């Protein structure tokens, strides 16, 4: 029996099992790939909260992904070099403690999302798309022109941050951390979507007048969703930088925002597990076709067009529909 729930559980379990087997057969590259899939899906789950459930097409979520990356990278590199990061009101050398890095990431990404949200949520439709893109591009060019942190070249952070003495440099250990985060984020989003707040958010997607007439302020609902969304995508950025031990402005590029949207579209718009399926498909696709030609994105384009034309619910929607027809 194929149901959304079953597809979700099967995909989670298979990712976990593949990672265990890869460790057993000593395939570190595969483990890195799986970690990437998970990190990308966390980023897209964050975006899906506003895009899939609130119909807010943010084309600037790379801003949160990149900011999360830069915050983590800057904290880590200062700790690594024992360089002073802040001298007032207290001395702060950065940190390579994951918990501290994540807290900073959540704080700054929420703050940025609040700022971007306050301005962009006054608009809708195409204007919303453009203004979110504009914010992300501003950060992108700022990062490029900021010599202290590598400018266009970015910078390396050499070692991963530490968590409770776990050896995070070991691929499978880092995978477990990412996987744990994925479970938390999935739990939180499904909780949010099925809450009174989630119902109000889903309602803003269809009819703002109706929402207002029952005494709910749609702007505040959307803003709160946008902040939650930015924080989740920020966490993904933090993990991504830790995975690659490298920070670069490309984290902030509009292509990154575009890829998040593609994960959601391929997996299934407005489905909690859609981004996970989409990101897994995307990374596998890139690996497979990328090994034959560097123009693999041509084939991806065909997939996206056919998804939009023939399978609007993405992979999950397609499987559910196929099952119904049988």
């Amino acid at each position, binding site marked *: 029996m194929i149901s959304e729930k079953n597809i979700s559980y099967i995909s989670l379990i298979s990712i976990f099992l593949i990672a265990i087997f890869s460790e057993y057969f000593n395939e570190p590259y595969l483990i890195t790939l799986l970690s990437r899939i998970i990190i990308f899906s966390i980023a897209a789950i964050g975006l899906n909260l506003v895009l899939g459930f609130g119909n807010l097409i943010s084309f600037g979520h790379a801003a949160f992904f990149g900011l999360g990356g830069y915050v983590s990278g800057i904290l880590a590199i200062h700790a690594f070099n024992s360089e002073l990061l802040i001298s007032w009101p207290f001395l702060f050398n950065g940190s390579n403690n994951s918990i501290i890095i994540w807290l900073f990431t959540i704080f700054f990404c929420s703050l940025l999302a609040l700022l971007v949200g306050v301005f962009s949520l006054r608009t809708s439709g195409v204007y919303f798309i453009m203004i979110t893109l504009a914010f992300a591009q501003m950060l992108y060019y700022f990062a490029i022109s900021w010599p202290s942190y590598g400018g266009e070249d970015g910078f390396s952070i050499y070692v991963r941050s530490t968590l409770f003495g776990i050896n995070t440099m070991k691929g499978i250990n880092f995978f477990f951390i990412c996987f744990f985060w994925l479970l938390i984020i999935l739990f939180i989003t499904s909780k949010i979507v099925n*809450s*009174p707040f*989630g119902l109000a958010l889903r*309602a803003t997607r269809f009819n703002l007048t109706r929402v207002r007439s*029952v005494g709910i302020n749609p702007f505040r*609902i959307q803003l*709160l969703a946008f902040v939650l969304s930015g924080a989740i995508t920020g966490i993904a950025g933090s993990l991504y930088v830790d995975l690659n031990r490298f920070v670069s402005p490309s984290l902030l590029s509009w292509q990154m925002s575009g890829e998040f949207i593609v994960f959601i579209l391929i997996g299934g718009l407005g489905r909690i597990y859609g981004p996970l399926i989409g990101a897994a498909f995307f990374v596998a696709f890139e690996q497979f076709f990328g090994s034959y030609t560097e123009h693999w994105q041509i084939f991806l384009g065909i997939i996206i067009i056919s998804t939009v034309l023939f399978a609007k619910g993405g992979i999950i929607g397609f499987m559910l529909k196929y099952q119904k027809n049988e």
Partner: protein
Amino acid sequence: MNKILKIVNLKKNFGAITASNDINFCLETGEIHALIGPNGAGKSTLIKQIMGEIKQDSGEIILSGINISNFKTEDRIHLGFARSFQITDVILDFTIFQNVLLAKIGKEKTFYNFYSSLDSIEFSFEEIKSILIKIDLWDKKETAASLLSHGERRQLEIGIALALDPKLILLDEPMAGLSLDKIEKMKVIFNQIKNDVPILLIEHNMDVVFSIADRISVLVNGKIIASGSSSEIKSNLDVRKAYLGTA
């Protein structure tokens, strides 16, 4: 009986035309009070003043003891005015249950709660069930609003209004465009909900008015010329002359 809405000496002139001429009127608990009158009698002007969309020249509007004469429309809605045609439409992609639940969430101000599951919110289920039974849509609670007929959608609108727990409901021609059997159904629904919320009814269909209104006020040339039960109004000579056309 308790007076929910009281209008005292309300006057409104537009230049030389008197739209409201010293209107005194009240809506009591448990009643359907119909307001009738020929075209141009000043019904819309009166309703607009009650809702705060235009301001009276003099006189007072009192909602359960509070003088709301100078309140803005939004504040009046917050205090408990529900108006059927104000509710533009329902959320078509939501089920009937979800539409009413959303209104309940708005009323209870629980829309910032993002940790409780919708199924576990105790207050809502029983209350929404009783509302859906009143508007006769309980059997269809899981149906998407987009699949409803015109009449059922109107029933749902009334359900949403009820979920907001209003002090009174203002129905502006609720029977317009409904088939005969739907009208019968709506009459039953109105008779049920009036015990919870009094209804101020503006309706052109005289059969409807005479069969369900507990009291009827007749407005002619900005003045209420008669007020009373169906039989009193039917036999009132002034009304017959001014409104029904026969003496």
